[in-house]
Structures are given as structure tokens and as C-alpha cells.
């Protein structure tokens, strides 16, 4: 089943021959300049008709003012200042993005502006149908008239909405920047700590060596130096932890206050047995199990006698306090 799925993906991605496509893309259809010969050639398009041509063609044709599109049969009059860089490979996508940008700058109401979801959905539907009409050149004049009418009657609300939207975008940018800063700081701190630790270790090594040269009691010196190093590093770690806490606390605080859970989250889904029916003692007399405690293979496998005792006890009491009649689903 999975192999047929992957075949499907593979075949769909090769519907157009890559060579042919790239060749077309790399030559200006007007002056036939090839990218091979002028590698810094750029293509521009005009939202009037979306026919693409290279930068030098645009300069050549439109420097002296508006002129018709050089594509045969197009005939649209283009202006130089409207030319722009093509962002998307697909011209249709480019066109739709432009139309969308224009329409949504005018039809910029939001869900909050409506009494209920139904009205909002109706509004969205209307906006989409306008975009669709512009996209497919249906009732062009009629729609354009509708848009300008709407713009005239709602001009105040439109500018207000646009302003608030811009402000929101700015806030978003700010927040993003803040998060970036926090992350950068954290990485720097960690690097610093790592470096300091390395230095400290090196220092400790040297200290041990120099002290050993003068004194006899090796073990004592080593343990002394080690203890002092440990003290220093653990203090550093604590510092880092506190810093991280304060750093991570700031962006999250605003986050959590905005939304609230309806029910408290419980990791065990409310199904955790905390009250055991038995009490586990420190040790039991069981030569058979105690014997396993010392075996290397058991230790290496994660075997612990407490767990075995715990299991035996738990199994002994399993099911006590369970009533089958209550758990049986109602037929």
C-alpha cells in the first residue's frame, strides 16, 4: 500500500519536463537575451497584463512614457512605474495575490465587526466572489463599480481598520524580535558557561599538579581542588538557571493570561492510583531474589529488587476494591 503511494507522488512531480521549463524561464521573450550570456538579467511584470520581460526591455520601451505591451495581441498600455519583480513562478498566483491585496485593503472587516458568525461568513463569501470575478474576468466593469461604491461609502471604517491592522502587525513584529533576542541571549549564556567550565577544569588540573609537586598527600589535594571547582560550577549553573527562568517567563506570561483552560489538565487523565493498598518495606527476606541483586547481568538490565517486591505485592492486591458489576458497560 505504501509503495503505491510513493509512486503516485513521484509521477506527479514530473509532469513538466524540468529542462524545457528552465529554458523558457531563462530567455527574455522580447529581446531574446539569454541568461547564459547575461547572468544578472531580471524579469519584471506589470499587473496590467502580467506579461514578463527583462529589465533592459522595460527601460528601452517605457523610458519615454506609457507605451503598449510588446506582446502580440495584448495591446494594453503599460507604465514603467507599475512594473515589479515577479515573486511567484506561476503568473496566475502572482495575479491572484495582487487582486487579493487590492480587494482586501478595501474589504477589511473582521469577525469582531459582525453580530454573528453567519453574517461574517456571508461577508467572506461576498469578498471571495468578487476576487473570483476579477480573477476570471467576469463582469469586470460591474464589479469594479461595486468596489469603488463600497470604498466611497465605507471610507472611514476602511482606514480605521487598516490602521488597527498595521498596529497589530507591528506588535507581532516586536514580539517576534523579542523572542529572537531571548533565544540569542540564552545561547550566548550557555556558550559562556561551557567555556568557563572548561577553563575552570584546566585550572584545577594545573593547581593539582603544582600542589602535588610540593606536598605528599595526593588524594587529599585532589579531593580538595575538586570540591572547590564543583562549588564554583554549581554556582554558575544556578545563575544560568535563574537567568533562563526570568528570560522565558516574560514572553510566556502574556500568553497564558489570554487563554484559559475549561478543565484542569491532568497528565494521567484522572486515572492515577496514588494510594497504594500495601506498604513496601525496606527489605524482605527472600534469598532467591536477594541472590539476583548481585548478578551483573541483572544489574545491567535495569533489574531492581524493590521493583520485584513492589510487583509481587501489587499483584497480590490487584483487583481489591474493584467491582465488576460497576465496571461492566450498561447493555
Amino acid at each position, binding site marked *: 500500500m*505504501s509503495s503505491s*503511494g510513493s509512486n503516485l*507522488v513521484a509521477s506527479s512531480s514530473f509532469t513538466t519536463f524540468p529542462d524545457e521549463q528552465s529554458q523558457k524561464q531563462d530567455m527574455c521573450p522580447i529581446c531574446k537575451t539569454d541568461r547564459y550570456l547575461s547572468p544578472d538579467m531580471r524579469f519584471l511584470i506589470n499587473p496590467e497584463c502580467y506579461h514578463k520581460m527583462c529589465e533592459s526591455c522595460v527601460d528601452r520601451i517605457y523610458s519615454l512614457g506609457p507605451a503598449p505591451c510588446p506582446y502580440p495581441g495584448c495591446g494594453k498600455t503599460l507604465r514603467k512605474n507599475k512594473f515589479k519583480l515577479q515573486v511567484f513562478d506561476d503568473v496566475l498566483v502572482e495575479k491572484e495575490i495582487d487582486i487579493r491585496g487590492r480587494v482586501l485593503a478595501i474589504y477589511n472587516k473582521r469577525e469582531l465587526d459582525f453580530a454573528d458568525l453567519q453574517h461574517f461568513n456571508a461577508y467572506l463569501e461576498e469578498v471571495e466572489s468578487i476576487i473570483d470575478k476579477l480573477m476570471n474576468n467576469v463582469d469586470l466593469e460591474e464589479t469594479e463599480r461595486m468596489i469603488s461604491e463600497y470604498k466611497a461609502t465605507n471610507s472611514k471604517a476602511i482606514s480605521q481598520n487598516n490602521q488597527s491592522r498595521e498596529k497589530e502587525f507591528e506588535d507581532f513584529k516586536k514580539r517576534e524580535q523579542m523572542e529572537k533576542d531571548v533565544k540569542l541571549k540564552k*545561547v550566548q549564556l*550557555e556558550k559562556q558557561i561551557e567555556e568557563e567550565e572548561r577553563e575552570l577544569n584546566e585550572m584545577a588540573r594545573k593547581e593539582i599538579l603544582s600542589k602535588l609537586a610540593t606536598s605528599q598527600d595526593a588524594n587529599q589535594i585532589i579531593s580538595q581542588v575538586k570540591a572547590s571547582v564543583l562549588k564554583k560550577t554549581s554556582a554558575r549553573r544556578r545563575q544560568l538557571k535563574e537567568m*533562563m527562568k526570568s528570560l522565558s517567563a516574560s514572553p*510566556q506570561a502574556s*500568553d*497564558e493570561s489570554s487563554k484559559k*483552560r475549561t478543565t484542569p*489538565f491532568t*497528565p*494521567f*487523565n484522572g*486515572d*492515577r*492510583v496514588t494510594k497504594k493498598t500495601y506498604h513496601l518495606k525496606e527489605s524482605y527476606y527472600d534469598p*532467591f*531474589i536477594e541472590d*539476583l541483586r548481585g548478578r*551483573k*547481568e*541483572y*544489574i*545491567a*538490565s*535495569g*533489574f*531492581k529488587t524493590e*521493583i*520485584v517486591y513492589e*510487583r509481587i505485592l*501489587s*499483584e497480590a492486591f*490487584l483487583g481489591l476494591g474493584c467491582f465488576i458489576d460497576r*465496571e461492566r458497560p450498561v447493555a
Partner: protein
Amino acid sequence: MPPLYTKSKKVGEGTYAVVYLGHHTATQRPIAIKEIKAGQFKDGLDMSAIREMKYLQELRHLNIIELVDVFSSQEGDLNLVLEYLPADLEMLIKDRSILFSPGDIKSWLLMTLRGVHHCHRNHILHRDLKPNNLLLSPQGELKLADFGLARSLTSPNELLTHNVVTRWYRAPELLFESRHYTEAVDLWAVGVIFAELMLRVPYLPGRDDLDQIDVTFQALGTPTEENWSNVSSLPNYNDLKIYPEPTRSELRKRFIGATEAALDLMCGLLCLNPANRWDTERALLSGYFKESPDPTVPVDLPKLSKKE
């Protein structure tokens, strides 16, 4: 008398069973019928069929597949009636059109751990946890399935087979052919699944059993006597390439979207030494589940985009 269940179409075939889609006649509830091929085995039923039946009968939990009924047909075939779960986690991971949010991953991991926790508190090892065996209900709930390799823990001197768990999800003590492993093997598998959910590709894909050892330790460091006492006494501990343990910043780079708490949990589950590996309770109490974002509500989890 009309039949209690109807079989409609065959949906899959395994080595020892055929799975049919069916309905409970009275309630029209969709069910899956797993028909065990009898007669193929000389000494009665296949072991995994018996295991599956034995343990599923004992376990009732929201995150474990429900065994509705068991019956035998006239030909002597054994039929397990299971709850019908149309998708599994592997399908979702492979479906590139679906994006996982951090909350989705948290929710799946949470449900997996809840299911495993229920098995372990009943002293049952699943021993075959992998995305393919984590089934998803139409309501988005994740359920452990395929208890064909499950067993309960019995006397500690009994030998366990080390040849369990699908290779990529096999814990290091199993790779070393330990015969006395514990619940920790399941938690290792959960850790690998967690990593896979974040990466969207298998985390430790060994080509064969030998390569698996290499891949595992390349990613997580070779265990030594220092961080795993007595590891060298395990049968298969020899000829190891020594890889250093990954540093925290290396892990951060590998798992870009992961928070610190998520990495803590993952490292706890992927702890080489089974004695220090986190158990289900510790994992469920991890800070990862408490921090924002909240785990996604099961109904809102991503579903398979379309059915073929």
C-alpha cells in the same frame, strides 16, 4: 437467529491473521474482525494470537484497543472482534501534506504514555511499540494495538527473549541481548517515537541488527561502564565503536522546534542505562505536558486527508 456480527470486506492480511471490516448487527457499530488462520500450525494456535487475546482481555483503557468479543467459526478458526480504528500514526507521519503542531505531538505522546502506563501498572510489557501499532480512532484518540508480542512479568529468574520490538525501536539492552529486561524497553520505544514525531523521519533507522547498534550509539553515544554499570557483562557487548554522547546544543540543533522540557523528556526516555530511564509516571509528570502549548484535544488532531 441473525448473526451477531457481519463481515464485509477484507482490509488487511498478516502472517497469522486476516483482518475484515464488519459491523455489530444490533448496534451497527463498525468493528474489525481478526480471523486467526488455524491449521497452519501443528501445535495449535499461533503464540501471538494467544498473547493478544490473553492481554487484551485484561486491559480496558481509553488508550488501548478494545477487544469486543472472541468467537470461533464453524471451520475452527478463531476470531477476535476488535474495535475498528481506521488510521495509524505511521500513516500520519508519512503524509507530507499534514503539518504537526507542537500541541499535536504532545497530545499523541500523552495518549501513548497513558496507554503504556496502564499496561505497566498491570505488569504487562507491550514489546512492540512503534507508530504503526499506535492506532487512531475517528475521534482522534490514540490507542495501543497489536499485543502479539506482549507478555506479563513473572518470576524474575525466568528468561525473556531479546528478539522483540521492531528493530528501529529496540532499546540498547535488547541490542545487547539481555534476557532480564524490564518495562524500560517500552519507554525507549516511546522515546524513539517522540523523536520521530518531531523529525517526521525515523530517528534510528538501522539496516540490520548490527547496523542498529551503530546507528543508535552514533546518535546517543556509546554506553560505558561509567554511565551504565555492568553493561560489559551483557552478552552482545563487544566490538563497539566508541561515539561521544551528544551535547545538549547538538540535540537542540537536531530537534529545532523542541523546547527544553521536551528535550528533557526525550533524553529521559532515551537514557541508555535502563536503570536510570524514566518510567511512565515520571514521564507523565514531566514539565513538558504542563508547559504551553496545551496538548491538542483529540477531536482537533490532524486526520488523514483522504481515503483511497
